[in-house]
């Protein structure tokens, strides 16, 4: 077939996807940036008024925004760190040969398969202040001196949210890392065993360095996800008790307060934050792609 002909056909096939990208991502994004420069309500009752970068200046002084930013950072750092460590342990366990390995791999997929809203509700019930499993069993076995209203106290609410996120996403982490582990050639370990290297040394000298690319990608993936956390927070605490994250604040301003301009400015800030990490992601993935 003629090359020119083929290229034309390719354009034709790619066009619907490009149109969809522009319609649901490009154009709305352009609008969000434009809205952020105006003072306007989302129902468009008042005519929009140009305020330039006014909203962004306001953000710097807004204690709610500062707190949401801090909460988002706390949530992201806590959940991503624990997920990575737990995920690595689970991946190492599944990677070794043992009877019933398939069953374990299937079992860890369960949390991943459950919708976030549902897992949030399930855990909210398990953490119920009077009848929740955690409190009742905790007191029964002497792990807790008395029942704790986990989600109603500022000191424990964020920790509870992180625990639920860890439960939900560790499987994803473990599966990614498992795939990475499977890429490491067995001969390396055999050679190490012949040289008499103990297991922990094999882990530090072979596993960890060779797993680093996968680990980086998994970390960035999870960080991106954690930075935009919304479902868990909204369902479990509604953003109360020092758990309001940027996305939750954003929706509150935008929809509940109907403040199109200020809400859009927060959206832009979230996007910039995430783009920083996308840059990092493209950097790492782009490198592995070129090496292929």
């Amino acid at each position: 077939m003629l090359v020119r002909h083929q290229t034309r056909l390719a354009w034709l096939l790619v066009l619907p996807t490009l149109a969809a990208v522009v319609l649901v991502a490009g154009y709305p994004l352009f609008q969000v940036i434009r809205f952020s420069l105006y003072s306007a309500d989302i129902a468009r009752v008042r005519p929009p008024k140009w305020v330039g970068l006014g909203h962004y200046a306001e953000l710097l002084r807004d204690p709610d925004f500062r707190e949401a930013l801090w909460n988002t950072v706390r949530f992201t750092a806590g959940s991503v760190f624990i997920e990575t460590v737990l995920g690595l342990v689970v991946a190492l366990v599944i990677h070794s040969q043992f009877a019933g390995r398939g069953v374990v791999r299937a079992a860890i997929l369960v949390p991943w398969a459950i919708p976030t809203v549902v897992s949030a509700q399930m855990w909210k019930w398990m953490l119920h202040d009077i009848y929740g499993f955690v409190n009742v069993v905790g007191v029964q076995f002497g792990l807790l001196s008395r029942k704790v209203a986990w989600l109603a106290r500022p000191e424990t609410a964020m920790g509870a949210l992180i625990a639920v996120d860890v439960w939900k996403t560790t499987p994803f982490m473990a599966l990614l890392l498992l795939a990475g582990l499977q890429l490491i050639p067995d001969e390396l370990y055999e050679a190490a065993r012949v040289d008499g290297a103990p297991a922990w040394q094999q882990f530090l000298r072979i596993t960890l360095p060779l797993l680093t690319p996968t680990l980086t990608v998994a970390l960035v993936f999870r960080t991106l996800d954690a930075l935009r956390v919304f479902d868990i927070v909204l369902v479990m605490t509604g953003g109360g008790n020092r758990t309001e994250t940027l996305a939750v604040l954003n929706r509150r301003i935008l929809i509940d307060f109907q403040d199109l301009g200020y809400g859009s400015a927060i959206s832009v800030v979230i996007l910039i934050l995430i783009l920083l990490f996308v840059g990092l992601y493209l950097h790492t993935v782009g490198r592995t792609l070129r090496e292929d």
Partner: protein
Amino acid sequence: MARPGTSTLVHAQVAARGRALVRPGWVRRRVGRLLFYLIIAGIVVYSVFPFYWAVTSSFKPSVDLFSERLKWIPSPATLVHYVTVFFGANFGKNLLNSLIVAGGVTGVALTLGCLAAYALGRLRFPPRNAVLYLVLAMTMFPQISVLSGLFVLLQALRLFNTHVGLILSYLLFTLPFTVWVMTSYFRGLPRELEESAYVDGASPLVTLLRVVLPLTGPGLVTTGLLSFIAAWNEFLFALTFTVGERVRTVPVAIAFFGGATAYEVPWGPIMAASVVVTTPLVVLVLLFQQRIVAGLTAGAVKG
């Protein structure tokens, strides 16, 4: 009491005799093995228990649910919460809405995605990488960042609070994924495929439909399943772009399941609804385990 030095010596002697009796390292290996299986049991219980607890809770009568004496198995068991969910609430309607939206967006994403992926994976297309990265950038888009833009767009198109509106907005996170995974599937097929088809005089589109697509069946199933699950679970857009019960999907319904009064949370029905929406997903995931794992990790590990 013996001096520490003696006791260590005795210990060493006992240990030496022990080693002579059993094969060296036998005990240590046994203990290690036991520890290993304990860790595995821990992982399995940790993963599955919350779901198990939701299932048992959904079958417990309210008296047992709101009691400080825990029952590990519901006895007596009751279906009252399931009856409440399906007859006392709009849950059937919510399920239907979720099916329409998740099924719809999966169909659209697969159709558009396969056409694009065929061009990107099999045809000569100079701006290939530019398009792939553009689409990848879209994956990274936080949904919240386009919320106000999409909100205004859907209202302008008169698609607010409609199934089509939700389907359209869900392309944001299903389409990029579909394009990427299908492109990598298409690229993995041997070159000779189309060549022989061209020789037989088939046009590229016919080749795609008759030759290439049937070979990528597994890929289609995986991507379809993953985008269906993503859409089925979506919460933020469903919450923001719908009003009332007409288009409300399952996650929103479960998040805002109301009790008889504002202060009473109906945990029984919430758990019953949770079990209803989760069971098919868990079954699907367990059935397609291998493929899902391959699909999830393909993008990340191989790039």
